[in-house]
């Protein structure tokens, strides 16, 4: 059985998604809704990381329940830069690129959850299936957010 592999991969990809969301938040501090919402929903991925580590124990995995760290000094500098360059038009394009990235990463995580749910059903692992059913909707909401925000921001960034 390769269930452990699937859990390990999700643990990695959720950790990565949380980092991506926090980095996007930092780069767009002057875009307040992006700054706050990206942080709020990074919290979902961090919660998933903890839950995956816990369930991983049942499959002989030793995964870190602590999500990877809060942003360090580099990110703080990015926040300050974002404020500083808030008066220039380029951040609009950068935001589009960043949202596209979030959407792709979240789509990857979403597929990972699909894989895990399929495997959990096949192996009749109820707890694992319940975890997937609990967490996967959050991932879909993260995707929908990136998609919606992209759609909402695109026109002004591209036609102005």
């Amino acid at each position: 059985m390769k269930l452990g592999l699937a859990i390990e991969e999700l643990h990695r990809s959720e950790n990565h998604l949380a980092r991506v969301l926090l980095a996007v938040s930092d780069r767009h501090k002057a875009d307040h809704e992006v700054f706050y919402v990206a942080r709020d929903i990074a919290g979902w991925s961090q919660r998933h990381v903890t839950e995956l580590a816990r369930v991983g124990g049942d499959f002989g995995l030793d995964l870190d329940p602590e999500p990877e760290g809060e942003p360090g000094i580099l990110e703080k500098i990015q926040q300050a830069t974002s404020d500083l360059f808030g008066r220039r038009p380029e951040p609009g394009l950068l935001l589009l690129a960043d949202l596209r990235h979030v959407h792709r990463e979240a789509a990857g995580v979403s597929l990972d959850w699909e894989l895990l749910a399929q495997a959990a059903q096949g192996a009749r692992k109820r707890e694992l299936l319940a975890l997937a059913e609990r967490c996967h909707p959050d991932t879909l909401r993260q995707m929908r957010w990136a998609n919606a925000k992209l759609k909402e921001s695109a026109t002004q960034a591209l036609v102005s």
Partner: protein
Amino acid sequence: MPRIDRIAEPWGSRTPYGPGETWPVRVDSYLADGLTEDDVDRWAQSATILHSNGDGLDIAVKDDRIVGVRGRAVDRVNHGRLGPKDLYGWQANNSPDRLTKPLIRRDGELVETDWDTAMDAVAGRCRELLDEQGPSSIAFYTTGQLFLEEYYTLGLIAHGGIGTNHVDGNTRLCTATAAAALKETFACDGQPGSYTDIDHADVIALYGHNMAETQTVLWTRILDRLAGPNPPQVVCVDPRETPVARAATVHLAPRPGTNVMLMNALLHEIIGNGWVDRDYVDAHTVGFDELAKRVEDYPPEVAAEVCDVPVEDIRKAARIIGHARRLLSTVLQGFYQSHQATAAAVQVNNINVVRGMLGRPGCGILQMNGQPTAQNTREAGADGDLPAFRNWSNDSHIKDLARVWNVDPMDIPHYSPPTHAMQMFRYAEEGSIRFLYVTATNPAVSLPELARIRSILAQDRLFLVVQDIFLSETAQLADVVLPAATWGEKTGTFTNVDRTVHLSEKAVDPPGEARPDLDILIDFAHRLDLRDKDGEPLVKWSDPEGAFEGWKECSKGRPCDYSGLSYDKLRGGSGIQWPVTEEHPDGTEHIYVDGQFWAEPSYCESYGRDLVTGAPLDGTEYRALNPSGRAVLKAAGYLPPHELVSEEFPFQLITGRTLYHFHTRTKTARAPQLQAAAPEVWVEMAASDAGDRGWAEGDLLEIRTPRGRVEARLRISGIRPGVAFLPFHYGYWDQPGGDRPDGHGRAANELTLTDWDPCSKQPIFKTAAAAVTRLAAGDGPSAAPTTTGSRPVSADVPPTRGGTAAEAVEVLAQGGAR
């Protein structure tokens, strides 16, 4: 004639009545200079303009000047009563500070000019930018204080003519969450309640709603019920000890930013104890199981901890609400301007829905407005939404609107949600919005984080037009200032929270060269040469009644249907509640009777949004969720607020309002009785917080956040410990700085943070972390009113009085009118 000081007695004398009885008539009036009704030349019919209640009144005119007001006994809203702001506030119309000529910026200074020069400059710059960049460079920021006809015309010009998506009102700060919460639950705006529900309710729950100060006459109605036989029980949620809290059966004072936690705990109790109308839920709703599952995680013990509210009080409130037979729920800024605004307001809807308390006498929800005409901003499409609650993501609605306007559907921007006000300021900050046309509002005082807002408005690359009646802080930053007529000087209609439409007639001419907003907007459209697809002028009317007829056509068949109304019908009697149709010629007191909603996928105004991320649902998702147009029970988890207290910033700062002022005081500070009642900013803190620090009533404090600092004198009030309250009304137009602080700040919004609810896009004014220090001991009490939420805990403060200058007339009718 019995006279009463309505500064000292804001709600006047009691006229007690019992459940199901008619609220007795009491006619309030105030005439200046010792005049009596015999001296009045004529009366012009209107309604109140300095709050959202929509009380019918008549304007007294003598020698072609407004000299006073009198409540209309026949009006269903107020049965003759008026509030202090209505009785005295009209005096601002006659202020010598009124703008009487257009102003234009020349060599850095605003100088007087003529209308042609001013309007050519406005239309010329707009045209230039349209040619150079297109509609994405043009934005309109309007208000909740114009008339329906003006909003509808503005929306037509912006959406149908210029084709910009950047249209919003300051209603974003006051009622955006009301609209958003109704759209989430009922898929459409429109109040599922009526003021007459107060006459029948046995429980009235007010959530973050200091009705006693924001809608004084509506509160008078509740006071009269409380003074009569079989009074209702009152539940109050507010961190301050407001007049509502003092009258409440149970008062919950949660920690700011924890409303969703508290609401989920109330729902936990209501659902857990089976105080649910199962038949109603099964027949008329979707989403119950998910809601029930979600609130399982919120037992009162958890909420008691997070909200810092006694657990037995949460249980008691839930029991009262859960046993109500006729439940009226009302919501305002304590929820709308706080963290997770829409999610919290939606949970109030959920309570009424799961209890089946809708669409019959005494059972309703009033997601309140703050401003007199905010409802029309939303209905007519001046808040960015499309007119008459059309759905921007439903192509057939766009096609239908294009038919009404005779334009190509492609000309109406609907590729994404409308740009909300905070985003418009962001686009102006990054330089892609270059023309901002502000009507009748004052963002340089009312928006959060003022240093940022001023720096955006003052940019050379932004062409700022301000249309107003006084030289506000915002107007002082403008490139062109257009002097407008106001209430009493122009004709139009407006609609209050409970869907009552009033006609407001012109009583006198505006001062100098000031012109009605409608005339200015039509002039703007003509100068831009905006045309429909047949080459005819886009705006097809030239006066208010023509605009109203246009609106009737646009609203026909939509929820806010005005097609059965006319100016003639609104003259002489009471205001009338929409929808008014051939079928319901006298209006509609209750909507959503028998669980019939406007939520059907092809008809609804909105498919809803994610309550946390704000991402809109698309038509397919909504259809799958709610194919037959039921009410949607939406669950929401609690998220901690974004700015938390720390060692450096240990207080939670909330901003708010007082009974005697409206918005940024441009009118109320020019009414002597109102200004004297609340002349200067103050800060409220709890006795325990002041005592711990050795501070006393009247001490001069500095309130500081990472964004700015404000000085204010201390009022020790019944506010919950750990919280500081600042009224947001006080800016700089009557200070040496003019448009900004000269030395220390006094506008509360110097301190607030730029953050908003992702769903309603309403800015958050009630969760900031602040430091408070004492600058100097006081030599007397602060100037805060003693009659209101700022009532002092100490007896040594002299009471707020208006004296003889504030003596108004109050006539109690013998026997009831309607």
